């Protein structure tokens, strides 16, 4: 039934370079270097994540401009990957997330094969974090055109207007925590919202309680967020919550030496002092 209802997007030109990716994945799985390969397959409307454990399935793999979901989120899901050696097709933002997860000791490169497909349609395999950093510094940053207008609108608002805007938007949130589930940085065993001794954040959905959650989330993302937008994309209500963390990225870039748009390295914006810190906020 579903197939009828939802129109399948034609495979775009990108598919022409999925071939090389499939070949690489096949080799990795065959040699046993990788036991599980995380990539994208064609979905009903958009490409969706797929988990490939055998060479029979590598034909499903695709990678193109529509593959924007941040697959790094699965790298910390022990229930999914266990102790397996994992390969991943990482988008630009997923690479940033991987660097950050390495910094935070959540993944190890020795059990992980990181691949990406460059703009020149080459499959690149990264051996070290430095390779990833170098790639991120040269690769073009994907732009999310649809956000631009809203960001401009928000920036033009007064503080009061912004507060009104966000209060209205966040009052709709019903705390499904899809944003949390989609975020590679939300890997905590116990989230702050589940902490009940004391109950810092009210558990129910109400404007104040929702704002508490989203401000906390943005705060926890400071200096860590890869700005991938997965949280906003995951929101079933389409609330632009990814712009909160996007703003945090801007603040960190503006006020600290940490340049998120270059590469997320081993620094922590809020706990590391560097002489190059701009400290614009000290008046």
């Amino acid at each position, binding site marked *: 039934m579903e197939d009828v209802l939802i129109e399948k997007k034609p495979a775009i030109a990108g598919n022409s370079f999925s071939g090389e990716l499939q070949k690489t994945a096949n080799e990795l799985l065959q040699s046993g270097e990788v036991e599980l390969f995380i990539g994208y397959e064609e979905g009903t409307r958009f490409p969706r994540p797929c988990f490939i454990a055998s060479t029979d399935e590598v034909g499903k793999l695709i990678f193109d401009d529509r593959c924007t979901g941040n697959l790094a989120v699965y790298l910390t899901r022990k229930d999914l990957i266990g102790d397996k050696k994992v390969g991943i097709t990482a988008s630009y933002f997923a690479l940033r997330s991987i660097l950050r997860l390495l910094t935070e*000791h959540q993944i190890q490169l020795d059990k992980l094969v990181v691949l990406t497909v460059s703009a020149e349609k080459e499959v690149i395999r990264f051996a070290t974090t430095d390779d990833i950093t170098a790639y991120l510094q040269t690769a073009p940053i994907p732009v999310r055109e649809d956000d631009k207008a809203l960001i401009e609108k928000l920036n033009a608002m007064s503080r009061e207007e912004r507060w009104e805007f966000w209060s209205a938007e966040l009052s709709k949130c019903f705390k499904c925590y899809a944003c949390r589930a989609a975020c590679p940085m939300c890997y*905590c065993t*116990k989230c*702050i919202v589940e902490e009940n001794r*004391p109950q810092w954040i009210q558990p129910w959905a109400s404007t104040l309680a929702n704002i508490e959650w989203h401000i906390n989330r943005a705060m926890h993302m400071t200096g860590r967020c890869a700005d991938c937008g997965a949280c906003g994309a995951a929101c079933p209500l389409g609330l632009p919550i990814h712009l909160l963390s996007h703003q945090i990225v801007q603040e960190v870039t503006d006020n600290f030496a940490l340049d998120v748009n270059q590469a997320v390295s081993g620094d922590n914006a809020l706990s590391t002092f560097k002489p190059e810190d701009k400290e614009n906020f000290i008046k």
Partner: protein
Amino acid sequence: MSKIGVFICHCGENISATVDCERVAAEAGKMDGVEFATDYKYMCSDPGQTLIKNAIKEKGLTGVVVGACSPRMHEPTFRKACAEAGLNPYLCEMSNLREHCSWVHEKNEQTTEKAIDLVKMLVEKVKKNKPLNAIKVPITKKALVIGGGIAGIQAALDIANAGQQVIMVEKEPSIGGHMSQLSETFPTLDCSQCILTPRMVEVAQHPNITLYTYAELEHLDGFIGNFKATIRLKAKSVDYKLCTGCGACTTKCPNKKIPSEFNEGLGMRTAIYTPFPQAVPNKPVIDRANCTYYQKGKCKVCEKVCPTGAIQYDLPDQFITEDIGAVVIATGFNVLKTDFFPEYGYGKYADVLTGLQFERLASASGPTLGEIRRPSDGKVPKKIVFIACSGSRDPAKGIPYCSKICCMYTAKHAMLYQHKVHDGESYVFYMDIRAGGKNYEEFVRRAIEDDGVNYIRGRVARIYEKDGKYIVKGADTLLGSKPVEIEADMVVLATAGVSNPGAEELAQKMHVSYDAYKFFAEAHPKLKPVETNTAGIFLCGACQAPKDIPETVGMASGAAAKVIGLFSNNELTREPLIAVVNRSAPPVFSTCVGCFMCQTACPYNAIEREEIKGRDGSVIKTVAKVNPGLCQGCGTCVAFCRSKAIDIQGFSNEQMFAEVMALMNE
């Protein structure tokens, strides 16, 4: 069910003058979980404490709130009283009704209301308090003295003579510091080196002192009683075990035109050098930046002439790590150079000197062997001008403070000049004469009255050169600002005492605070002059502020006494108010996810990694662990932990939350 006792103190009239203490006690008595509440005139007095003790015993209290002064003042008093009555001392909390309430508000209804709220917060907190036990940590009985000037020497000798081990680190090739550069000392005019060098030798020979010259502190970790110091031993390029200090290398070194630091640039030294003849240790080092071999790749004259083969060009810097119990900072000061003063010629006039340079001219071991001669042409100056407060007390130059020693040494300089150049004329421009100290005023009077030094109260606006003379233009403010112009042969500026370059970096390495002028900050200007804000790190001498030798020596002995006092205990008792990482039932084990962001935030390097292992020894999880010896309980990690897996004992999230909610749930 909690049984809290609330004790409201009047503090004489300090609290009761603006707060209705009886009402606070009455209201407290109605609060949830409060078993007993009362007020008393002086709760810290013996009867007051007895009141608390009796209540604990009679009412079976499970927690105590004392509404009185600052916990900084009397928390230990009341906690001790509780402990004596059999209650865990950490179940006793203080509500600060004095500094936080009565002292800062008028007498009215609201002030009493606020006092009630403050008590209520603490009642809610105490309900969540858990019994804690003090932490005992061992003490490493070895002191690190940084700086080998008179301050460091005195401190090291005092500590060593008390039978404790000392490590002295000096960045120059010899100990001695600025005092070894001085000619004579005020107010007695005894020779500086004559009284200093025996002490330098004593340091070198003392069985309890390990001396590292040409060395610097690289890194300091740890906490009082348990520091770990990494010391960089800069490469001397000379093997001191083989070197006999014969001096053959220093005489033969072809590179002889390097301005001598010891002579303040008035003399020259070689690339391989001992700073001065009485140096301790009296063995040379190679100044690699100026050595022909290191710069151009060939020479090696010193190696050829060395009879013992002690020259070793390839020796790298070495690093040693020492366990230390206490640190004494004695890094001293410096003086501004003449190039700081545009109005006095930007340092381009050869015969405009700093006071320290004049010391070298007047010193028997100096470049002129103690004769006062002009560096430019070697002539004896017949007219000399001394300018006190050069830079000091001049907010426009960024140095508003008084450098303290200049009035005295300027009088000494003028006196020495008159003693050495009998037909000479000397002038001193001054703002005030600050000669506070035993025999100091008499010393200045002697310079003016017996030695005929001309004192002119006023500042010098400008110095310029004309026909081989320096025209000093100033004003005599005691004669109605009458312009004064002196044609001088030499000018000596009593330049401001400033902090050493590198003081800021050193302070940051040790987490010691410093003032706007990069002088190290004492813990309290009056009552803790030799302590720093970091426990176990003491300071003495001119690294804290410019000061003269007697004061420096006194302060050094003071710092030494603090170290000896610390070392007289075998272990240190510390408050258990530290962070802990939680533990929970399997399969979680701990809500810590091991991101170690706390590690990057911890200013005390107190966070370690701990592996939680299963029965078969396999690692299930790596989590953070707080070293109870290192943790200072600052709470930065708690704020940083996203899943609140770290908490501070005695100031837990729950306790803080309870305090806040006590105010919210009205």
